[in-house]
């Protein structure tokens, strides 16, 4: 049993049981109320799933990319919840949750604000793995490129070029994701755990350095 939390876009919390079953998922699409909603949504997801904190085996944290202030709320809550129950945290890039179980190559696109988009390109699960009987590993999205930032104005041209190339992103479908659902995020974390590929990296995918410039020195006050 796994609790999944994502605040890359709005706030989404889910409880999943194994690699295929979402027991509960609650979403708040508002992108300005993460600190307020995170507690009530965790409590409601646990209640909907009929699960107590002690029954949770691990916590999945969506790592963005996404607006920083909100993104950190979910990661902080996931880490502290895991600490509280003495269980591990699994970090999951949010775009992977959108790409999960897509039949073909996809370009996952989310709003990065300031007229930029964040995007990741996923190829299909490896043919050889499927041919050899699949297994959990074949059901994990294959990140080919990203996450990266692109100016919104340049996005169409970039994505058209990528989809036109031969290679893993050939014919890729563009998916603009206004929300990141915690259900698939949790399923992905469970599959990673089963495949032994769960990431302990919990750093947010900031993609941008803090917006600050070094001062050239105090301004003159006398004329």
């Amino acid at each position: 049993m796994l609790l999944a939390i994502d605040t890359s876009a709005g706030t989404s919390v889910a409880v999943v049981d194994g690699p295929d079953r979402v027991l509960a998922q609650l979403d708040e699409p508002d992108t300005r109320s993460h600190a307020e909603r995170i507690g009530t949504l965790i409590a409601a997801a646990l209640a909907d799933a009929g699960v107590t904190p002690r029954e949770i085996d691990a916590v999945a944290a969506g790592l963005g990319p996404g607006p920083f202030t909100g993104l950190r709320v979910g990661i902080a809550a996931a880490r502290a919840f895991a600490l509280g129950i003495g269980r591990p945290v699994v970090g999951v890039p949010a775009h992977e949750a959108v790409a999960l179980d897509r039949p073909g190559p996809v370009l996952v696109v989310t709003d990065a604000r300031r007229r930029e988009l964040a995007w990741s390109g996923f190829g299909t699960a490896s043919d050889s793995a499927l041919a050899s009987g699949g297994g959990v590993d074949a059901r994990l999205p294959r990140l080919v490129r990203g996450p990266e930032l692109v100016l919104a104005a340049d996005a169409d041209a970039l994505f058209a070029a990528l989809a036109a190339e031969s290679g893993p992103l050939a014919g890729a479908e563009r998916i603009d994701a206004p929300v990141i659902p915690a259900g698939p995020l949790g399923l992905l974390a469970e599959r990673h755990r089963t495949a032994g590929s769960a990431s302990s990296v919990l750093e947010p995918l900031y993609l941008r350095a803090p917006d600050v410039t070094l001062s050239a020195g105090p301004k003159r006050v006398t004329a």
Partner: protein
Amino acid sequence: MTAEPLVLGIETSCDETGVGIVRGRTLLANVIASSMDEHARYGGVVPEVAARAHLDAIEPTLHAALAEAGVTLDELDAIAVTSGPGLAGALMVGIGAAKGLALATGKPLYGVNHLVGHVGADLLRPPAAADGTAPGDPTAASADRGELELPTIALLVSGGHTSLLLVRDLIDDVELLGETIDDAAGEAFDKVARLLGLPYPGGPQIDRAAADGDPRAIRFPRGLTAPKDRDRHRFDFSFSGLKTAVARTVEAARDRGDDVPVGDVAASFREAVADVLITKALDACAEHGVPRLLLGGGVVANARIRGLAEERCAAAGVTLRIPPLSLCTDNGAMIAGVGAALVAAGRAPSPLDFAADSTLPVTSVRA
């Protein structure tokens, strides 16, 4: 509910990630991770840099505090977290973590006012075995400092706040008498240090430079002390005019081709800040008939401000209280302390959907 509740407090309102644990009024742990060094090159706290550092530090700081106190999460009676005032993005890291921890452990959660926390710091007592203060702490108190008597005037001075409070009751009756209308005093220290070519943080640098200077060399302005300010701003502060006056002095010296008299400027500036802070605090004591003054906030580390407070309080017959310096700077123990007072008084926990409030008024002790 127990009179001596075991409470863990989380503080992330500025650049310090603090986790403290108290049992009633007894301090069991006070662990702080500061991102101050990361801000030094910018000359002041950068909110996004601070918030990133909080996320990195929160989990290790929680572990360290539990280890220092020698308690487990199961034993806690409640969790408290600063809900404001402070930097919104920084506050939200602490609130996110506190809500996650409270839900995982099933413990009640209290959102606590940061400024009331600074007052509550004075309630905390070290455990009988040790005195809990940092080595070399100039404000280290003897084992028994006596009880905080109420009502008291409280002067809270830091890089983010300069506030004068009348505290009749820690959790029921805290009144804001005045606050800065522009820069906080600590911010003024940082800005003047930069003008003088001294590094961040400015407080200790100005203190050092002032040691060789004459505090009467330059008469810098005392903000909001003119007769016309008495009606509307009697207990408010302003340091922006002072900062400009220092800049003019420094520029005039450079324009003449003279060396800037760094020691005299630092000493005269520090004297102006100390003078206006203590004058207004004692005016509040007199106005409200309260012969008690409590200092709090990181600027209390400034030796001259402490010294002048001691001198003038003694002359005015006002009892001065200064908590140990490790509890004056931002910390989680003071938040735990207020949380413990709320639990002991039988107050309900905060609603689970409370927000970070960057301008939370002191009248809201609990979120």
